[in-house]
Each structure stands twice: as C-alpha cells, then as structure tokens.
C-alpha cells in the first residue's frame, strides 16, 4: 500500500462525483428533506423529534452511502476498471481506503449540512453535544460505505446490488431499537441485535439525546461502531480478487 495511490484513488472518486452534480445534490438534499419531513410529522408532539431525529440523522447517511458504494464498486467491476487496477501496482487496500476516504469526505459535508438544518430551522435539541451527533453521523456514513464495499463482491448484477440494501440494512433498522426498544425485543432477537452495527450507532445518539455529558456507554458504542467499520473495510479488501475463474 502506498499513500500516493490511496490518495490518487480518493481524488479520482471525488472527481467522478464532481462530474455528477446531480448525485451530489441528491446526496445532500435527500437526507435534508427527509429530516425536514420527520420534523414536520412530529411537529407539536412534545420532544418526539428530539428523540427520533438524532437516531435517524445517523441512519439516513448509512443507507445512502451503502447504496452509492455498492453501485460504484459494481460499476468498477462491470467496466473492467477494477480488474485493470489490480493488474497494476495497486494494493487492494489502496482501492478500499481510497473509496472510504472519498466517501468519508462527502459524508462530512452531508452530515454538516443536514445537522445544521436539524439543529437550526428544524429545531432539534439534544442534551449532549451537537458536534458529537455530527461525529456519529459521519461514522455511520463511513460504516455504510464500508458495508457497501464488503458486500458488493457478492453481487454480480445491478439488480442484486440494489436488493442488498433491504437484505442487509432493513433488518438492522427493525432491530436497532427505533421501533421497539431493544430490551423489549423477544429474547433471541435481543441477542441478535447485539451483533448488528446499527444497534450501537442508534444507541450512541440516544446517549447524546439523554445525557448532558459524555457517558461510558457512548464511548463503548462509538468504539464498537469503529470496530465494525474496520472489520467491514478489512472484509472489503479480502473480497477483492486479482485472479478470477
């Protein structure tokens, strides 16, 4: 792995985004509008937006980044550019980290704009630090990118790639505690929820909504999400193949 090739790959992915302003606009507008819609739905229902807002602020970017990364990687496979890169002096980690850095930077912009709207005009408040909510949102977006990189190897067509979103993300959404608090889930599902990264992402924002200072639980949540992120990036590296049958 060389810093130059990782950096060049990140710059190339960002350049591709720059040539596609509509995707960039959607990347920011979709979560912004969705959060606005949520604020409107919960308007007048005392503190509901303060409860659900921060949780979904972390989840929308995860879903968007998961989809975008799966499609981008599939495009690299289908166009032969991935195979070409892997015949060149490029390590698999250069490729995976290049994507993670580029989409991570996009996620920072996205998180800043959407949180700015939530904490500003949408009127969301948390007891903890608003900046830490932004940090969790960026980490969640990165997790979405890493999960997208690791599962995209399993998809051979666009139809399959798109269906990985409901397959890999929606079960986590059902079990992460937004619909039913995790402690109230049936026993087996409660255990399963411990294995899913989104449970910790959502719990981290709940900690920020509830407590004015940083809790140990919040730090544990953050560490677990970071661990899942590293694991998914490693898996994304392992699933790239230089030789194919």
């Amino acid at each position, binding site marked *: 792995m060389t810093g*130059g*090739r990782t950096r060049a790959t990140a710059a190339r992915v960002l350049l591709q985004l720059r*040539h596609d302003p509509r995707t960039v606009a959607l990347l920011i507008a979709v979560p912004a509008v969705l959060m606005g819609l949520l604020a409107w739905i919960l308007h007048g229902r005392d503190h509901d937006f303060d409860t659900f807002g921060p949780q979904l602020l972390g989840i929308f970017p995860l879903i968007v980044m998961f989809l975008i990364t799966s499609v981008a990687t599939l495009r690299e496979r289908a*166009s*032969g*550019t991935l195979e*070409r890169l892997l015949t060149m002096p*490029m390590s698999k980690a250069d490729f995976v980290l290049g994507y993670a850095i580029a989409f991570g930077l996009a996620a920072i912009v996205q998180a800043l704009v959407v949180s700015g709207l939530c904490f500003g005009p949408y009127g969301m408040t948390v007891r903890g630090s608003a900046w830490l909510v932004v940090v969790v949102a960026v980490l969640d977006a990165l997790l979405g990118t890493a999960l997208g990189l690791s599962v995209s190897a399993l998809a051979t067509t666009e139809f399959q790639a798109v269906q990985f979103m409901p397959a890999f993300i929606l079960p986590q959404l059902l079990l992460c505690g937004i619909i039913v608090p995790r402690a109230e889930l049936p026993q087996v599902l409660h255990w399963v929820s411990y294995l899913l990264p989104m449970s910790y992402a959502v719990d981290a924002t709940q900690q920020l909504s509830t407590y004015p200072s940083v809790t140990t639980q919040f730090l544990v949540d953050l560490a677990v999400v970071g661990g899942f992120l590293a694991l998914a990036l490693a898996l994304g590296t392992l699933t790239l193949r230089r*030789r194919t*049958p």
Partner: protein
Amino acid sequence: MTDRASTPLPTAVQVDHLTVVRGETRAVDDVSFELHAGSLVGLLGPSGCGKTTLMRSLVGTQVLSAGSVTVLGQPAGSRSLRDQVGYVTQVPSVYGDLTVRENLSYFATVLGAPVEAVDRVLGDVDLGGQDRSIVARLSGGERARVSLATALLGSPRVLVLDEPTVGLDPLLRRSLWSLFNRLAQAGTTLLVSSHVMDEAERCERLLLMREGRLLADTTPSGLLSSTGEDDFESAFVALIEGRDPTGPDAPAGCQEGE
C-alpha cells in the same frame, strides 16, 4: 510486417501446457508457445475460441487449471510484473464519467509513470485534441484508444492487447499497427488478438486458435503457402476445416491440425 535479424532473442513469455477450464468447457486446452522479446505476434481465431482466456492467463487475472505461464522470468501475475505488463481488454476499461486526461493522469499515478507520459500516449493514439472530453461522450473507437493509451503509460515490456483495432476505421488501424511495429522494434513484446483475419499480414508471427487449442504457430506467408490460398480469411477457413493443414507444405512451426 517486419523481418528482422534472426539472432535468437531472449524469451519474454513462455506458456507451458496451459489448460484453463471454465465451467464445463476447456477454454484453453494444453497450449504451449514462447514469445521472443521484441516480437509482434498475432493471436487469431473465431470468437469464443479462447483468445481472451489465454490473454488473461498471461496478465495473471485468470485462475489456471494446469500448466504454467512465465512472463519475463516470473510466474504471470507476480507483483514485480505489475508495472511491466500492459493489458487492454476487449471492452474499454476506463472511467466513462471522467475526461480522457483525468483517466490517464489517474492511471499514470497508479503505475508510477511520470506526468509527461500522459501527453506522450495521447499523441501515440492520436487523441491529443480530445483530452478534455468526457470519455462516455466519445465514439466507440475513441474509447478503445483511451483504453489502449492507458496500457502504454508505464512503457511496459510486454503488451497484451485484446482486439485493439476492432471497430476502427482503416486509417486509424494502419496508424495503430505502425505504432505496434515501432514498439516492437524498441523491444516491447506484443501479443495482439483479432478475429479479423486481414490483420494477420501485419504480424511477424501468427498463433491460430480454435476451440481452446493452438491450431497453428506460423508466419503470414507460411499460412498462405501451407493452405495454398491467396488471402488470410480463406487460409484460416481452410485450416479450420482441416483441409490439408499438415500436408507436405506445412510450415515447420505448425503444431497440430485436425
């Protein structure tokens, strides 16, 4: 076609009893040959005869079933070969949403090639005027040339080109073949595949494939004389149909016939 001194040249590529099984079919079936450094060799055969699988084996992206492929003294696909072997796939493998120059600059960084290489290869494939165009908006032939230019960036010692001239107009084809000749004269080893038999005359040596097997290892004039035909298409058809390919006039390099 160039005829150069017959002094023995070092071997750049050695394929030894290579077999690749893909699913139920033997895509490459017990193929052996050598390529000398600085040679320009054509790989001809009908679509689906195993040309692409053979080429992928040379660049190290294909899982081999049996046999071996050695490139510049190393097993094909070795880490040390990754900036020595250039590969152009049949379908242009470049980023459609970037400009020509952005594509080339990125691949130059990956290859560790100097920045000046971008302008050199743009000139080589005659795309200097379109360097700021988005690749997806170019014609098919132009896209193919961007893909070819990418493989030329690092000045590779071995170039594996899968149908690089398909769909190009005759003028461009001529200019690309003279580029291939120049590269070979400078010492680059080129294996160029085509299913257009007319391109045979532009190579100094021909490998003819059918159904995964090497049908003949010959020269353009050898192919014509052994089959008694006047043009390459008829000669190839004659060879495929098994009309006397191993007769008394068969070239010495001819390995097998059916």
